[in-house]
């Protein structure tokens, strides 16, 4: 992909837009369609697009392999610790009333945002790690070989 100038310029523009849309889907998920799973795959798709067009080594400068692999576990931790927090405060596991006992509605809202954030982090980095796993084993190909 050395000489695909148009693809590179469009990609540089699109990656930002895609990530922005992913963040919107993530944090507006309680008002509009979407949530952690959808946002995760959208953000991962932005990184994968960058990787295809700019080359694997360039996307791995932005998002190193070790970071993607470790951050995937952080999402599950965020989710589970939300539940553990509510146990510590004295409610049931994953009962979001614990976050703000005076205002149960606010507690639910914050809880949902936290949990969706955990889902989003895990899905994003798992997708990126899977892509690295596959693309890292692919031999470098010339355009003609496709």
């Amino acid at each position, binding site marked *: 992909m050395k000489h695909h100038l148009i693809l590179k310029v469009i990609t540089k523009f699109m990656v930002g837009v895609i990530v922005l849309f992913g963040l919107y*889907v993530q944090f507006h*998920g*309680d*008002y*509009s*369609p*979407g*949530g*952690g*799973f*959808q946002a995760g*795959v*959208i953000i*991962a*798709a932005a990184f*994968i*697009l960058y990787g*295809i067009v700019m080359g694997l080594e360039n996307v791995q400068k932005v998002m190193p*392999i070790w970071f993607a*692999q470790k951050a*995937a*576990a952080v*999402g*599950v931790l965020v*989710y*589970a610790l939300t*539940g553990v927090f509510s146990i510590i405060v004295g409610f049931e*596991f*994953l009962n*979001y009333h614990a976050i703000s006992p005076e205002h*149960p*509605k606010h507690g*639910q*809202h914050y*809880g*949902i945002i936290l*949990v*969706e954030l*955990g*889902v989003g982090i*895990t*899905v994003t*980095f*798992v*997708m990126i*790690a*899977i*892509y*690295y*796993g*596959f*693309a*890292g*084993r*692919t*031999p470098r*190909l010339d355009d003609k070989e*496709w």
Partner: protein
Amino acid sequence: MALTLKHLFAVIMLSGAFSLVSAMLFVVMDAVDVAFTEAAVGAGVSTVLMLATMALTVRVQKETKRPILFPLVVVCLVGVLLIYGTLDMPNFGAFDSPAQLHLGSTYLSITYKDMGIPNVVTGILASYRGYDTLGETVVVLTAGLGVILLLSGLKGRKDKE
């Protein structure tokens, strides 16, 4: 057309296009969040993964000597049975379908009261069914770990030696 194609590149591209079309179908049926997922995973990520796999193997499918008549008959028969199965189902969007009558209407009426958020799907997914979603997230992580162990792990060990 995908049945008779031997060039795997074209087959992968066709399946990606098929995913994109089914994402549009989901939009038509008002399931926009499913459409997001289908467009990003089905048309985007999995097409890339298939291409990466193809780059590791071969570009053209081998000619088979086995007869294709029997599998074709089985596939057609299953298709006919599936379509026959849909005849009993309630119409699309019917208000008296079982899905709308029991839990669905309860969730629709209590979600806003309990949480003050308008997206009932998110409310069910993240709060009423929080355990299940935690499980799903762990499944996604496990799938990722499996791929990392199978693909990247081996490579790392070889590099060290």
